[in-house]
């Protein structure tokens, strides 16, 4: 594998969507990763991240930036560490006792793993959508209103009503559920439930949304709706998405990161990754060859 050091000299500029990727001046060694893992004006910045489950190392020295209003897709075979890495970003791995995270992770320059960081507001800033839709066993309204209530974002009914309607509209679900807000969220179809979960995530006005295979349990039509939504959400949020569908990564993201056995092998504009990847492991994976 190539080793490259990003500095003023050899970090090639690249235009990736709206993200400005001018020369990044840093002395950090991005070991083994080819392409452009770093970007200027990063919303999320992860440096030299190592993750261990007990004695086993799951992530090896991964450095990656995610720019403002950028969608970064993380792809790779099962067990490559992409979900583990995603879960570091809002400290979901804290819930696993044997899990240890090393490295510098910052959100807007503030450390995510600082000793004074309270994970509850952190997770309000960094929302998450999971593989299987998991609405609370409550009404559709309550599902969305729950977060704003416990985070003290809104208390009066009128405010809550507004947040619920806005969130459901943004999630593209309002027209389908406006007449049955008092019905249980679990009664919706799979695709609607997933959009409800997205509405629930955005109700607390997060800055970043993490998505862990959000469409793997959905049919193609529901998937297309979610993908459309991701594109819409990008205007206001920074999004990191883990997906097993290469076509989905190609469709929704501006940059794609390929993980392999806990290493970040390549990060490049999505266009490059799917037409002319730089690393042979990336090529082997996206074309379905023996890697």
């Amino acid at each position, binding site marked *: 594998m190539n080793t490259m050091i990003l500095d003023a000299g050899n970090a090639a500029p690249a235009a990736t969507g709206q993200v400005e990727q001018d020369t990044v001046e840093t002395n950090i060694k991005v070991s083994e990763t080819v392409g452009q893992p770093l970007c200027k004006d990063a919303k999320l910045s992860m440096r030299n991240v190592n993750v261990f489950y007990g004695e086993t190392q799951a992530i090896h020295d991964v450095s990656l930036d995610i720019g403002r209003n950028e969608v970064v897709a993380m792809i790779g075979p099962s067990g490559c560490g992409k979900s583990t890495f995603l879960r570091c970003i809002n400290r979901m791995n804290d819930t696993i006792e044997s899990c240890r995270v090393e490295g510098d992770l910052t959100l807007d320059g503030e450390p995510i793993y600082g000793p004074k960081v309270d994970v509850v507001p952190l997770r309000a800033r960094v929302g998450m959508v999971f593989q299987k839709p998991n609405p609370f066993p409550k009404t559709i309204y309550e599902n969305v209103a729950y977060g704003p209530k416990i985070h003290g974002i809104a208390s009066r009914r009128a405010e809550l009503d507004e947040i619920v309607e806005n969130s459901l509209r943004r999630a593209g679900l309002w027209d389908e559920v406006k007449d049955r807000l008092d019905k249980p969220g679990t009664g919706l179809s799979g695709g609607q439930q997933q959009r409800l979960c997205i509405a629930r995530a955005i109700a607390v006005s997060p800055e970043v949304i993490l998505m862990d295979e959000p469409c793997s349990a959905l049919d193609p039509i529901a998937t297309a709706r979610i993908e459309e939504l991701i594109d819409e959400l990008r205007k206001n949020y920074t999004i990191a998405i883990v997906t097993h569908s*290469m076509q989905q990564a*190609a469709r929704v993201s501006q940059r794609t990161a390929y993980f392999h056995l806990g290493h970040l092998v390549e990060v490049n504009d999505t266009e490059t990754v*799917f*037409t*002319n*990847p730089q690393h042979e492991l*990336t090529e082997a994976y*996206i*074309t379905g*060859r023996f890697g």
Partner: protein
Amino acid sequence: MEMHFDQHISRQFNEDLESLKSEMLEMGGMVTRQVAEAVESLANADSELAEKVLRVEKEIDKREMDLDEHATLIIAKRQPAASDLRMVMSVIRIARDLERVGDEAAKIAKMAIALTEEGTAPRGYTEIRHIANAVRKMLNDALDAYTRFDVKAALDTLAEDEQVDMDYRSALREMITFMMEDPRSISRVMNVLWSLRSLERIGDHAKNICEQVVYLVEGADIRHGHEENLRKL
């Protein structure tokens, strides 16, 4: 990066891509033969051979349509990416160029028939042979470079087109001078001129094929003089 199209987890995908490539190369072989026979029919005033070229031309058109259909099916079924995608795209583009080479060969065959009817042209056969040999070699080398994924050979072959263009221009000047000196020969010399023009176009198509070799192997689109895209990599 090395090019391997036989290492997919899906064996059927390996076979699909392999047969797409070999069908294209087979079409390339047919087209190269067409050019040779068209030129031969012209040089020897052999209208029977020219008629044969015109018959085979229809078969070549069909080959292009078959290749397109095959490539479309692969895209629909496999959603190829990276080198696989470039392989499919390059085959589609090359098939179009080959079909046009076939058209040019057919035009030459038609000129051969016209010349056997009107009487042979007084000039131009040496130039035709010379340029025909050059473009046939280019066509052969371009397809050979594709078979071997050989970018260097493709670039070398591509560069030969400049000489062909120069030879074409100089033959053109010579024919014009001759027609001015002997206006009675204009109609027949024009037939030779059209054939020269067709051969020059065949050189351009061979050049296009070379560009697709570079696209397939390096992922750089150097068409329309954008060689800098290759250097950027």
